[in-house]
Each structure stands twice: as structure tokens, then as C-alpha cells.
């Protein structure tokens, strides 16, 4: 279990770089920081126009869905590149939740209902979410709802992007995963630390759902892909923090010198660069393992999440500190990155939870 078979491809292909450039262009036009900050205080924290451009315009919602089911038939490698750019822009779109986690959960199901829903999610015109708390780890526990006489009852908290979705994939106590229309449940927004990926409570009071398949493997698959690809979002986020801070410190002068010329700060930025470089290797490795269906996927995902989460938080915290007073303001976007990074460090399992998973996977057992 401590050696792996085939070598992962850790580079970006030309096609992946072209995809990155296209997504970055789109985000530059539609997702500048000022707009994101304004939007966080509106009634629709997510950006439907941006979502439409990404999904309808570029077909990105269907990257993981096979072509015969209306998707692009691409892999986790391309999705990872998209997530790097979305992380760099702290884009308020339900991409990770709908196009990755909910889509992966559906890919673990069989049957007409699941197939039809998959095709709808691939188009982006229907947005879905797995009704499991954002904090749940792939191997961790999660809540379920009661099923009584064919109807579902219960309350689920911490559901990411629930306010943006049309359909929820709900795990029930009978072991099934059910599709439930968002219009049939009560979605109550929670005041969330991360303003760009808000959470909500979902209350089901005797709702009829369509059974899609077994919840166990579907939830696990969804959360595992979510955790592995979240590392790419964290990479993009950390990279933005580093780049922006370096830019700022080259311009900002104190004591009649650019602040970036002081060794105490240079060393902190060089250290951060090293962490970002390492995160890129770990995130690429996880994306490649998921894409290849490698036997090493569980290890690759746990390593990526155990490493990337603290790096993203560190990058955002350094960015705030090194921007000085301006970093503490609402108008400067660094707070969006700090809030997203800290929330991401809990999403799909903390670094600690992933290290515990590794202890089992690589045979380094606790005392």
C-alpha cells in the first residue's frame, strides 16, 4: 500500500492551458472583486449570469458527464483547471457543489431518474446539490432524513449553495439517495463565514422524492471527488494571494524603499511560493488519480487535502497581514479569500480528518 503503480501525469496539457485561458478571460470580464463584494450583500449571493456563461456558454457544467448523457466527457484534470481559476476569482457559482459533487454522486447511481438528472445538471440549466453538510469528510458520518410511508422528514444543516439549486440529492435513513425538488422543501439561508459559498438549512416536511440509488457509495464518491478537486480551488486561491501580495509589496513604499525589498518579508513570500509550488504538485496528483481511476486515489486525495487546506489559509493570512491596514477593510477583496480559505479548510473534511484517513491507508496506525 505504500508504493503506487503507474506514474501520475503532473503537468498541464496544452488543451488544459487553453481551457484555463478561456475561463480566466471570462472571469476577468464577469467576476471582478468589486462585483463579488457587492453581490455578497444582495439577495442572490451567487451569480446566475456568470453561471450561465460558464455552463451554457462554455459547457463546463458537464465536463464530468459522458457525451452520450449530454456532457463533455472530459475528466477531473480539466475540472481541476476550471476550479483553479474559480478559486483565483473566489467566484460565487455553485460549480464545485453541482458540477462536481452532485454530478459525481449521480454517476454512482444507475437508473432512468439518475440518468435524466445527470443530463440536466450537465446542461447547467438545472443546478443540484448533495444534501450533506459541507463539513462532511468522504469517510465521515453525515446526517440522513427519516422516511415514513414514502415521504421524507427531517432537517439538514450546512448545505452549501442550497439557496441556488433546483434539486437536492437527499440521503435517507433507509439507505437510499432521493432527488427532491428545491421548491418542495424549505431552504433557510444561514449566515455563513464564507460569503461566496453560502450555507443553508434544508427542512423536509413530508416530501416525496425519487429514489436514485444507494446513498452510501454515491455520497462517498461525491465527497471524495469534492475533497480531491477542492485542492485545485485552494491552489488557485493561494496563487492569487501570493501574486497580489508580491505585486502590492513591489509598489508599496515605507522608509523610502519598496516594502518587498525587506528581507523579513521576502523570506515569508519565498516560503509561501514554495508552499504553492508543492500544492500544485499535490493538487495535480489528486486530479490525475481521480481522472485515471487509480488505485492510489484515496491516498492522493487525502494527501492533497491535508496539504492544500492549511496552505490556502496561510496564503490568505499572509496576504492580509502584508497588505497592512488596507487588508482589514471590506473594500479590499482579501477578506473574501480569507473567508473562503478558512471555510475550505473545513469543507469535505479538515486536514486532520484527512491525515487520520491516511493513517489507515498507509498503515501508520494510531497508538
Amino acid at each position, binding site marked *: 500500500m505504500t508504493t*503506487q503503480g503507474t506514474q501520475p501525469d503532473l503537468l498541464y496539457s496544452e488543451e488544459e492551458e487553453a481551457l484555463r485561458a478561456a475561463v480566466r478571460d471570462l472571469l476577468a470580464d464577469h467576476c471582478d472583486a468589486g462585483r463579488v463584494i457587492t453581490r455578497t450583500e444582495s439577495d442572490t449571493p451567487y451569480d446566475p449570469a456568470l453561471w450561465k456563461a460558464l455552463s451554457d456558454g462554455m459547457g463546463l457544467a458537464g465536463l464530468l458527464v459522458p457525451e452520450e448523457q449530454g456532457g463533455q466527457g472530459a475528466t477531473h484534470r480539466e475540472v481541476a483547471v476550471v476550479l483553479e481559476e474559480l478559486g483565483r476569482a473566489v467566484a460565487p457559482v455553485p460549480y464545485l457543489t453541482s458540477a462536481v459533487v452532485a454530478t459525481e454522486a449521480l454517476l454512482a447511481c444507475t437508473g432512468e431518474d439518475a440518468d435524466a438528472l445527470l443530463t440536466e445538471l450537465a446542461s447547467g440549466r438545472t443546478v443540484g446539490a448533495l444534501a450533506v453538510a459541507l463539513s462532511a469528510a468522504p469517510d465521515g458520518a453525515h446526517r440522513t432524513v427519516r422516511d415514513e410511508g414514502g415521504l421524507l422528514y427531517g432537517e439538514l444543516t450546512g448545505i452549501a449553495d442550497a439557496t441556488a439549486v433546483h434539486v437536492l440529492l437527499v440521503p435517507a435513513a433507509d439507505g437510499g439517495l432521493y432527488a427532491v425538488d428545491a421548491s418542495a422543501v424549505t431552504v433557510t439561508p444561514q449566515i455563513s463565514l464564507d460569503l461566496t459559498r453560502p450555507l443553508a438549512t434544508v427542512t423536509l416536511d413530508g416530501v416525496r422524492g425519487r429514489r436514485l440509488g444507494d446513498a452510501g457509495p454515491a455520497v462517498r464518491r461525491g465527497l471524495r471527488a469534492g475533497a480531491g478537486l477542492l485542492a485545485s480551488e485552494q491552489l488557485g486561491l493561494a496563487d492569487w494571494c501570493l501574486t497580489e501580495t*508580491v505585486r502590492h509589496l513591489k509598489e508599496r513604499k515605507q522608509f523610502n*524603499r519598496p516594502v518587498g525589498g*525587506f528581507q523579513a518579508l521576502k523570506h515569508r*513570500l519565498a516560503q509561501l511560493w514554495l508552499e504553492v509550488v508543492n500544492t500544485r504538485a499535490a493538487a495535480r496528483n489528486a486530479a490525475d488519480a481521480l481522472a485515471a481511476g487509480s488505485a492510489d486515489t484515496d491516498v492522493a486525495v487525502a494527501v492533497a487535502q491535508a496539504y492544500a487546506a492549511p496552505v490556502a489559509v496561510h496564503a490568505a493570512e499572509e496576504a492580509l497581514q502584508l497588505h497592512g491596514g488596507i487588508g482589514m477593510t471590506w473594500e479590499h477583496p482579501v477578506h473574501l479569500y480569507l473567508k473562503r480559505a478558512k471555510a475550505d479548510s473545513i469543507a469535505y473534511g479538515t486536514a486532520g480528518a484527512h*491525515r487520520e484517513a491516511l493513517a489507515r491507508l498507509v498503515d501508520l496506525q494510531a*497508538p
Partner: protein
Amino acid sequence: MTDAAHRGGAPDATELRRRTRELLAAHPPLETGRTAFLEARFDAGLAWVHYPEGLGGLGAPRTLQAVVDAELEAAGAPDNDPRRIGIGLGMAAPTILGFGTQEQKERFLRPLWVGEEVWCQLFSEPGAGSDLAALGTRAVREGDDWVVDGQKVWTSSAHLARWAILIARTDPDVPKHRGITYFVCDMTDPGVEVRPLRQITGEAEFNEVFLTGVRIPDSHRLGEVGDGWRVAQTTLMNERVSIGGMRIPREGGMIGPVAKTWRERPELRTHDLHQRLLKLWVEAEVGRLTGERLRQQLVAGQPGPEGSGLKLGFARLNQEISGLEVELLGEEGLLYEDWTMRRPELVDFTGRDAGYRYLRSKGNSIEGGTSEVLLNIVAERVLGLPSEPRTDKDVAWKDLAR
């Protein structure tokens, strides 16, 4: 790979494989003898295939060396013990290739590669470490010779070396980087005295070298007079870019022995050590992946700046892992294998005990550029941050405060 190899008629993988088999047929390794085989291999251009023809190479892409090495290894051919002659291979050879005369290349490269002549590097001095250009060893021109006086330090292999690459001050009246010249020094000459330098581990892996009236012929100068700093940059760059075609398996570094001890000796486990071990295991694996990513970039012909950071990462990681290992061993961690002064030919981290690993790895953040200097290099060359103001830039070396 094969198409990319056809640069200006350079041999491709197929051609190299054919030539390797030809060498093996003409000089069966088991009957030929070690040195004779290595000489034949050098003469066939299969020593370092990216070097020019006649100098041990064929002008082929560097990445194709792996093709030759694999064929030779499969046939049980001897290698040139690259770890033992690392300074010659990694530092002296690329510098001689880059700056030497044809005569110098023909004289030095073959015995260097074959391992008949070991090399050492006379760069660091007691007063010139991170600020290497401040060096004070003097070389004064006398007819066709240079007369060298000074002291060098941290010289590994000096007690084994036949030759040294040496930098010395030839003009004290110009700013420090401009008055340095680069030489090849004969270690058997009168006036060269090598004294073992015993270290923290109890061993004398390095030496102090005292140079007193050593005469070096001008024909052993590498590059122009006063251009030694630029020549030395080639050496130093090659020292830091030692990562190449090597693929490291998971747990291939210092984390390996610790993980093994953890698995085999459950009585040593504590919760605190478990948390730290898992964290370091993750960092070791991520460091390995970064190295692998750099390797893939090099093979794809898109070298990235990642190499600048690898040594930094490994230095800190080695120190933390070996520190954890000593603690994990508890009562045994209080013991040390052997304090006898010995003179090892190699630094062997894996074959030694935890206490040695802990002490020796402290040097990882100092040797080959301190971590502080490497962080400056990353900050300035990769991130483009300004350098700190300098007071020594336009001052003649002789006028510097010291």
C-alpha cells in the same frame, strides 16, 4: 521522444541503444575489467551522451542518458560510482566543458568521468561563506605561473582528490566580484596541506585546506583573468540543480526509516508523535511529488523554477523528520552509534542511525547555499522582489571593512 531527439542529426534513442549494444559486444563487462570498460564507454560517447563527441558524449539530448544507463545496467556493466565522484561530475566537469580550452577538456574530462581522478572544490573560506565573493585567498602572477596563498574550508574529498577547482583573488583593487579568477589546482603540489575538520557527528567528512606558495601554471586557468565569479556561477548552478532523472518512490527519503520503525514497534507510539509523523509523512510525499513534477517538466523541455525551492524544502523536512525519529526511539534515542573520528567517503543518510541523521541533516540548510540565501534567491529571481541595499557594490575589495 524519438522525434525530439533528431536535433541537428543527434542520435536518437534507437541509435543510442544500438551503440550501447555494440559497446557491450566489443567489451563484455565481465571479462573487460572495471576501468577498461569505463574507458571504452567514455570513448564510445556513452559516458554523458549530451557532451560533445570526443569528450565522452555524442551531442544527444540529456534525457536520453537513461536509455543508455538502462541497457548497461541490464547487462551488469559497472558504473562510474557517481556518488563517490560527485563533485567532479556535478561541478568540475560542467565548468570545464563551459569554460575550458580544448586542451583542458581533453586532459581532465576522461579520468574525471572514469573515476581515476577525484576532484574537490576550493571555494568556501572561513571568512567567505554565504558572501563567497568576499574570499581572500590570493593568486599573484609570476611569469607563467600564479602563486597562491590562503585558506579554504568545508572541502569534502580534499584528502582523496587529485585535482581541485579553485577560486582566488587576482585583483584586490576592484570590487569583490570583479577581481576573482578561476583555476584548476593540483592537490599533490607542494604547499597544499589538507587537515581533517572534525564535525558535530564526530566524523571528519570535510577538510581545511591550507595553500602556501602553491604554483599553478597559467595553462590551468579556467576562463579569463578577473572573470572567475562568472565561471563560478556555472559551478554553483550545477551544484544546486542536482535533481535529474531520478524517480523517488513513496517513502524513498528520510521518512522511510521512521515509518518502518513506527510500523514494526507499536510500543514506541504516542499520540503526539502520531500527529507529527502524519504531518511530516504528508509533507514528504508532497515534496516527492514536486520533485517528480519538476522531472516531468524537464523531460518535456519546459524547465520551471521549482528546482530553486526543492533544496529548501528537503533541508527543513530532513531536519524535522530526523528530530522526530530520535524522539520516537525514546531510550534508544539517548544513545549514539559511534563517536570515533572516521573519514567517510560518502554522506550516507539511510545506512546510519537516527542520531547521526539528526546531527548530519543540520548541515542541509547550510551546505550548497544556506536556506536564508536560497530564500533571497527565490524572492528576487522567481518573485522579482527588489534586493536589499548593498554597501559593498562599488568598493574595491581591499577597502571593504572586515
